């Protein structure tokens, strides 16, 4: 079965450990082998580019280099980690001079970036490995009657030139998975809008307003819950939900599930193993 270098990212290792738990549980159930490389570091969430691009590229080329050593494609469960790693790969694969410069830096630590492995998001892997039909076959507790808001956010789709898995204007991966699980994806007007996470510190109100608007749209669309492939979106949508709703003059509870949590439920994994008890907005299963 498929084997990957697992790059959970800091959120899944920290404040979103339920994402880590659910991912591991789902992978195990589906027979996807996840090898977590102990050398993986934080990707810098893009802010390293604000220190210096060379630092950003070197740190992430280092991460990829360890996966290359194992000969394994990287799979991550964080949209921002995905974009940061993909961007590094994109720049180094398309610019020989840059690759040379970065490799000079890596060589100081005895490493080399060769461009031999790919970087993927966990939910891409689900579709690539099983397809909609295959996934359907694995479902033991179909989520019949559930209306799920497919919240993409930004960094699994944009920019398409770097991510390239699907159209950034009409992505369907989440809808496909939701359908395979027996649930119904609602059509969300704001499914591709930003949650504001990355401006949370400098502009908390703007950040909260964006999240509030997204939650409101989920409510308006008649969704029972919202699912996202990104723990950072999740942090804003779930942990900060009441604050976000206050910013748009609302107050209600909208459960927000990490995508592997949603998948896990349909695969019949018990909620505790999926860390559902850790979600701030209670998820009643």
């Amino acid at each position, binding site marked *: 079965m498929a084997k990957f270098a697992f790059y959970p990212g800091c959120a899944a*290792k920290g404040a979103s450990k339920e994402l880590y738990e659910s991912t591991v549980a789902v992978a195990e159930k589906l027979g996807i082998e996840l090898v977590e490389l102990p050398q993986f570091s934080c990707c810098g969430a893009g802010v390293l580019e604000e220190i210096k691009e060379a630092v950003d590229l070197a740190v992430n080329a280092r991460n990829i280099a360890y996966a290359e050593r194992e000969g394994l494609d990287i799979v991550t469960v964080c949209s921002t980690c995905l974009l940061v790693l993909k961007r590094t790969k994109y720049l180094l694969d398309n610019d020989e001079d840059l690759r040379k410069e970065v490799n000079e830096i890596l060589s100081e630590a005895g490493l080399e970036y060769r461009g031999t492995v790919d970087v993927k998001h966990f939910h891409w892997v689900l579709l690539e490995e099983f397809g909609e039909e295959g996934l359907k076959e694995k479902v033991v507790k179909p989520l019949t009657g559930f209306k799920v808001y497919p919240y993409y956010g930004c960094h699994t789709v944009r920019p398409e030139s770097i991510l390239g898995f699907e159209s950034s204007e009409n992505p369907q991966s989440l809808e496909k998975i939701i359908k395979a699980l027996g649930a119904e994806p609602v059509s969300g007007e704001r499914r591709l809008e*930003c949650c504001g996470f990355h401006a949370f*510190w400098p502009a908390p109100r*703007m950040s909260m307003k*964006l999240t509030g608007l997204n939650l409101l749209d989920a409510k308006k669309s008649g969704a029972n819950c919202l699912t996202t492939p990104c723990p950072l979106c999740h942090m804003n949508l779930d*942990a900060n939900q009441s604050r976000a709703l206050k910013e748009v003059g609302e107050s209600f509870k909208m459960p927000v599930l990490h995508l592997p949590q949603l998948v896990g439920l349909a695969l019949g994994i018990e909620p505790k193993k999926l860390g559902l008890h850790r979600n701030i907005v209670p998820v009643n299963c």
Partner: protein
Amino acid sequence: MEKREVLFRIRRFNPKRDEKPYYQEYRLTVPKGMTVLEALQQIKDTQDPTLAFRAFCRSAICGSCAVKVNGFPKLACKTQVFNELDKFGTDTLTLEPLDNMDVIRDLIVDWDRPFKRMEEMKPWLVPDPEVVPKTLDEESRVYPRELKKFDQFTDCILCTSCYSSCTATQLDDGYGGPFQLARVYRFAVDPRDALKAERSKIGYAFDMWNCVRCNKCADVCPKHVSPVDGIMKLRGLSIEVGLKDNPGARHVMAFYKSLLESGMLNEVLLPLRTKGVKGVLENLPVGIKMILKGKAHSPVMKPIAEHETLVKVMKVAMEVE
């Protein structure tokens, strides 16, 4: 040659006459290869001469014809009808004016505000007398690797697609805007410019830290410029010139520190490091909830394996030019 019957839903509005915008439908037989602009002109020529839209070069360099096609900003001249139909699995194309600007008529928006904003941000070279020769007998020397730093940003054709889709522009009146901030960066790293990194202070004054990094600007740019990259780098320059005591800059330094300490982000210390005691207090209610749910890690973190290689590459990368 393949042809398709296409329904064009076009948003019409004449503020002088109409109370609110409305959609008008036109049917057109579209051959393969036809662009949205060609379709618009054909509708104007054969069905409705009153339809108003801008167009000029029709070769993707003048920036006149950006409109929203099924919700996303595109240069009408380089967008093929079939590609959009296939992408959305439909035979209908909805054409609308760009967002974040007022509509003058139909698909024509008022550009004055975004251009005025750019002008306020000093988008011109101020020659550095140390680099730019005093007489016209000599050139300034600009090395290819220096040019490479800002070259992509000079591709901007001011079509305002990025501005139309920008999340921060939508919510923050004080925000500089994606193409505008990217142009500030373009000059900040031009070796001929006298203001150099000081230009990042302009970015700071125009709320550059409020960019949410949604990457829409990079995604919609028809010339493949990535304004968000310019904005991120402009932020970096602001730290270099000493604008360090703000949440954005401190957040950056917190990451950097975490990576050097353990290789992973110290989320527990992030509020304190980013916003001081205020940050801790502001986020206390959420923080407590998270602790109760078992979502917090220990403030002391164990370094990742081979952490020394990370420290090494970071240090070396900081040194290189």
